[in-house]
């Protein structure tokens, strides 16, 4: 939590700094001096790709390689880029620290990378940098998360609002009109959490007779979801559903409900659709989740990068949204198979 708080704070500071510096161009120049140290460290971590003679150098800057989704996306991107002879991918981790990500961006530009794929920590805070680098000649892509604030940056995203929408629509079909729900949110200020929550409002909650009994920030953590649910079940006998903005917290709440013997009376809804959620749905515990498919995202990203670098794409950028997938007991089997095949699940 400390780390996430820090990143939120960092974002605030960066945004403030950007706003303050708006008047003069010079101030917007990122500090070049900090770059080499950070970059050197990050580069050392990147998996050594087989040297491809004269290939385009592409960098992927994930948020945090210890986060399940980011590491999955990195893996899928590595696979997708391996299919191209003339592109080579390097990964530089930002360890969930915005400043590190900004430094990595500088490093990439300074070292002459031909393309930078950014899995942004805080798109709004990074837009100005991205716009400037593009103007200076390095094309950028925002992957997975994008506030669409830079016109000429490519974009491959699964809209967080859509992710919320498909689950909320499914929940609407399965919940009573006067149901009582509790809500678990992601870290304060997190775009994914805010957008998913907004979708729930628009689709399910606004103008309905559904009551939100409790709503707390669970920081995406399973243990927090569990703890909140344990306490809430003491106060409320009539919780019909848990609406969680990610799967980990929903599954934490499931563990708590199991322990209290109330699993059957409560429905659980998450978002993310990774291995843990697939297992929980298969076991009949989680009711539904939505997936942002890293495999599709990676394939599309590699295609766009290649088209831009080879000049096939004359505009120099392309913005696409990949469809989100609702996972329910009906179709969970195919995801179990898939995650077992790609090693995210062991038998």
């Amino acid at each position: 939590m400390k780390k996430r708080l820090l990143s939120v704070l960092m974002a605030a500071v960066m945004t403030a700094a950007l706003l303050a510096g708006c008047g003069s161009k010079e101030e917007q120049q990122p500090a070049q001096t900090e770059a080499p140290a950070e970059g050197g460290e990050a580069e050392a971590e990147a998996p050594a790709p087989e040297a491809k003679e004269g290939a385009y150098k592409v960098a992927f800057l994930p948020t945090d390689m210890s986060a399940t989704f980011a590491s999955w996306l990195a893996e899928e991107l590595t696979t997708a880029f391996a299919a191209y002879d003339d592109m080579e991918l390097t990964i530089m981790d930002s360890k969930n620290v915005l400043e590190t990500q900004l430094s990595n961006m500088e490093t990439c530009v300074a070292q002459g990378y031909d393309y930078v794929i950014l899995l942004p920590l805080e798109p709004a805070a990074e837009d100005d940098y991205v716009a400037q680098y593009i103007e200076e000649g390095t094309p950028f892509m925002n992957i997975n998360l994008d506030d669409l604030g830079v016109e000429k940056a490519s974009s491959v995203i699964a809209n967080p609002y859509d992710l919320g929408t498909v689950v909320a629509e499914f929940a609407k079909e399965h919940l009573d009109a006067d149901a009582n729900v509790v809500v678990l949110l992601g870290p304060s200020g997190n775009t994914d959490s805010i957008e998913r929550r907004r979708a729930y409002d628009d689709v399910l909650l606004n103008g309905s007779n559904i009551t939100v009994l409790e709503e707390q920030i669970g920081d995406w953590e399973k243990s927090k979801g569990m703890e909140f649910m344990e306490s809430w079940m003491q106060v409320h006998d009539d919780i019909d559903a848990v609406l969680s903005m990610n799967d980990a917290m929903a599954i934490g709440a499931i563990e708590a409900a199991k322990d209290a013997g109330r699993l059957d009376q409560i429905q659980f809804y998450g978002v993310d659709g990774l291995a843990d959620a697939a297992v929980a749905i298969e076991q009949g515990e989680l009711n539904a989740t939505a997936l942002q498919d890293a495999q599709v995202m990676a394939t599309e990203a590699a295609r766009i990068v290649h088209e831009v670098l080879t000049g096939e794409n004359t505009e120099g950028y392309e913005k696409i949204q990949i469809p989100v997938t609702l996972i329910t007991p009906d179709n969970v089997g195919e995801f179990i198979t898939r995650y077992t095949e790609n090693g995210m699940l062991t038998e």
Partner: protein
Amino acid sequence: MKSRKVDMKKYSLILILFGMMIVCSLLNSSFLSGTNLMNILKQVSIVTICSFAQGMIIITGDIDLSIGYLAGMAGTFACIIFVATQNLFLAFMAGVLIGAVVGAVNGLFVAYFKLPAFIVTLAMQTVCFGIICRYTGGQNVYKIGDFKVLGQSYIAGVIPITVVFMVVMFVITHVVLKYTKFGRYLYAIGGNKEAAIAAGIQVVKVKWSAFIISGVFAAIAGMVMMGRLNAGIPSEGQGYETDAITATVIGGTSFAGGAGTAFGTFLGSVIIGVLNNIMNLMGVDSYVQMITKGFIIIGAVLVDSLSKQGRTGIKIMASSSDAKKTK
């Protein structure tokens, strides 16, 4: 005289806790239910085990910031080993071993090479997290099967296993601190290192051992945590080291070293647990919860500081004066 004041201090923590509980039961009718009180104990048990480890290290005047990450690493590795072997004993012992090894590495640099514990254990955070993430590829470990008995089962059908672990670790810590030579050496080193050396205490060896014990405690906390979560999640331990510091300091352990008890640490942890619980029961806004917790921590440290400035000696524990006798 001194020991009477010490008793007063313990007594005051208990009074604070009871006072809080009375207020809480008036604020919310669900608070005093058996299940809820058991929930509180369940929720604090993992942090409390970490706090016992942290407490021991702080008593020697050092700090161990690697606890949370080590818990995440050892717990997740134990899950992996259990999934591979289906042998709970083996997995548990492997986890303990990992804890001991990391503790020994901490001790090597802090006790033997005399580097600042703050930096060494801070660096060890990323080492631990890096190792486990390198191994799992950043993915969590699911389907851990019977490993969850370490965190979700009940003894005699009513007492959660996590609470049993906490009580066992409490007894061990209490006995070590109060009734062993090793425990008295810890106080002596934290109270006055030069005097401890002069008294013939092998400071390096004692400190090194303390870090190994801290590592083992953290690993056990990690395994209980993964059992409770029913998954191996490397990132879940993060932040426990600071929660552990908070609990020990509220429990009367002095940051300067040389003072602190297992019982005080336990009370400190429960006080935080009660605070978290009542705020959740009452549906207090997340942001207000953060602010409240922050000020409570400052308040606790203020009390710690004032009691030292005002009347020196008030916080010297019975066992600490025992240690002085060993001179």
